[in-house]
């Protein structure tokens, strides 16, 4: 197979700093670029990019780093990003362009593929290169994870897709790696935006946003009342995780919508998902089936959640959780002494 055009990854900036997903995308892209014998690139749009961020991209796998700097690119504004990326794609002709399925990625990529008239596949869980023709094989779940579809973009370039945040770990850093830096000057009419950002307020919550959490402790109707969610928050805090919830718990007003896991909430891919008092409706399973490990705690031994769990505890979460929290505290405290 002859070597192909570059594999691009969108290095997302959040509030002036490189977001961790940029490194995860390099882990996704490295294998694809090697199979295609192509160069792997990070593309950064910002008002200015720090040297340390450039270094991080290089040591985590980027062969090339495209840097587009303009004052208008300071915040994520969909139109400036779309037009600038459109110009860059037309200039450099990458074969593949991957972004993380964050709110930024899920906004700019669909605007960009429409501007370019190519294909885009959302939320891929697997990416591979067809050894016969070098095409990108994109695998994604559909219909609540009931089916997996393999999708190709045979005749349009670039082949564009998004992958879920946290679905791959960054490659170990290699301090000897160097990347070629390409500075791109955005056209002023492309960087200009119709939008103006008026405010940005961080919200207080337990742990990372659930879409990016490594550990999620989630509760449902079986938690019986809002006050009992304190146990879940406590366990999440002890484990360094985030709080999640079923639709029922959100609709009852116990937890904000931003914590909702499932078809009408967020799809999550943590390393560990602990479902407490959640029966496991199809709509909920659809949102958490991508978890690496699942623990379910429920009083009903027939609850469908147990079919999606590695370990099931049949019992009352209000009895199990305090014991578990106490054990974890003890484990922490006990070893601190030694």
């Amino acid at each position, binding site marked *: 197979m002859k070597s192909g055009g570059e594999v691009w990854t969108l290095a997302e900036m959040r509030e002036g700093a490189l977001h961790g997903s940029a490194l995860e995308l390099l882990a996704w892209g490295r294998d694809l670029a090697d199979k295609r014998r192509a160069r792997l690139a990070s593309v950064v749009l910002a008002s200015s990019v720090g040297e340390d961020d450039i270094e991080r991209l290089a040591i985590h796998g980027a062969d090339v780093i495209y840097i587009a700097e303009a004052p208008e690119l300071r915040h994520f504004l*969909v139109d400036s990003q779309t037009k600038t990326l459109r110009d860059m794609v037309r200039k450099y002709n990458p074969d593949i362009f991957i972004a993380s399925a964050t*709110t*930024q990625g*899920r*906004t*700019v*990529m*669909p*605007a*960009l*593929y*429409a501007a370019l*008239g190519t294909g*885009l596949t*959302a939320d891929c869980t697997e990416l591979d290169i067809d050894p016969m023709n070098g095409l990108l094989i994109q695998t994604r*779940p*559909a*219909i*609540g994870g*009931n*089916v997996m*579809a*393999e999708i190709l973009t045979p005749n349009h370039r670039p082949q564009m897709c998004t992958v879920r945040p946290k679905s791959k770990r960054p490659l170990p850093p290699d301090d000897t790696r160097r990347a070629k830096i390409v500075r791109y000057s955005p056209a002023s009419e492309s960087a200009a935006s119709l*939008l103006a*950002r*008026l*405010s*940005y*307020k961080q*919200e207080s919550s337990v742990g990372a*946003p659930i879409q990016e959490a490594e*550990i999620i402790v989630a509760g449902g109707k079986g938690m019986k009342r809002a006050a009992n969610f304190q146990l879940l928050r406590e366990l999440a805090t002890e*484990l360094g995780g985030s709080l999640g919830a079923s639709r029922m718990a959100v609709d009852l007003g116990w937890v904000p*919508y*931003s914590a909702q896991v499932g*078809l*009408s909430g967020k*799809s999550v891919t943590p*390393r*560990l998902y602990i479902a407490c008092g959640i029966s496991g409706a*199809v*709509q909920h399973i659809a949102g958490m089936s991508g978890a690496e*490990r*699942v*623990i379910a705690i429920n009083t009903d031994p027939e609850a469908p959640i147990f079919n*999606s769990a*590695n*370990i*099931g*505890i*049949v*019992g*009352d979460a209000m*009895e*199990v959780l305090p014991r*578990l929290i106490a*054990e*974890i505290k003890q*484990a*922490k405290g006990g070893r601190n002494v030694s």
Partner: protein
Amino acid sequence: MKIAVFIKQVPAVDTVKIDEDTGTMVREGVEAELNPLDLHALEAAIRLREANSGTRVTAVTMGPLPARKILAGAIAMGCDDAALLSDRKFAGADTLATARVLAAYVKYAGGFDLIFTGERATDGETGQVPPALAEFLGCPALTYVSGIDQIDSGKAVVERSVEGARETLLTPLPAVFSVIKEINKPRLTTLSGKMRAKTVEIPVCGAADLGLEDDVIGLKGSPTRVTKVLYPKVIRSGSKYFMAENVDKAMEALRSYLSEGGFLDFANERAAAR
């Protein structure tokens, strides 16, 4: 103000089948319903109409003829009128080809000041159509809209819910807003609404009406191809432990499972705390 709400008919989640040859969903015989997230888009539009006299809300969907049902439901909820974009030639469209049809309708209808959609459909789950539609119309796409703070004379201030934060943006109109569930609590349809829905005629627009050539719509106009469909079985061992039988055994199972996964390894954390 002219407002359009683009909605979608989706299969009821647990009854869906896939045609293994074409890789597309078999919609025959499967119960269809309005994408639940679209209720919030309809509600947002109807509230604006109630607050601003002279505003008209049109519900629009692309789909087979039976999709008329969700449009009637939208009128019953409070939309003024509706349009069904239906043509055999639209079949097999991916999100790009779909967005093209919707954009063509917007032009055909003489433009809208504001377009609402739900965050995403619960079947395809891509959320790609709203930003693509905005791009085709040359207007901004405001995704993950959780609130509309202000709207007047060609401008709007909206709140977006992004990872761990809220941002407010000033946008000119027209614009496409895709709203999240949190934005409102949709109303129930009333009996009088249902009666009205029976009297409103819903026009059907095809490719020819919208001036769309065959090669930009349907399967032919879709850059992506579904080449294989797999039915994954998520297999988890699912060992169960009963608290009522043996508390220690159950807690031990939890502890060792967490420990195996490295979730109880707090050594680094302690080092970081020092």
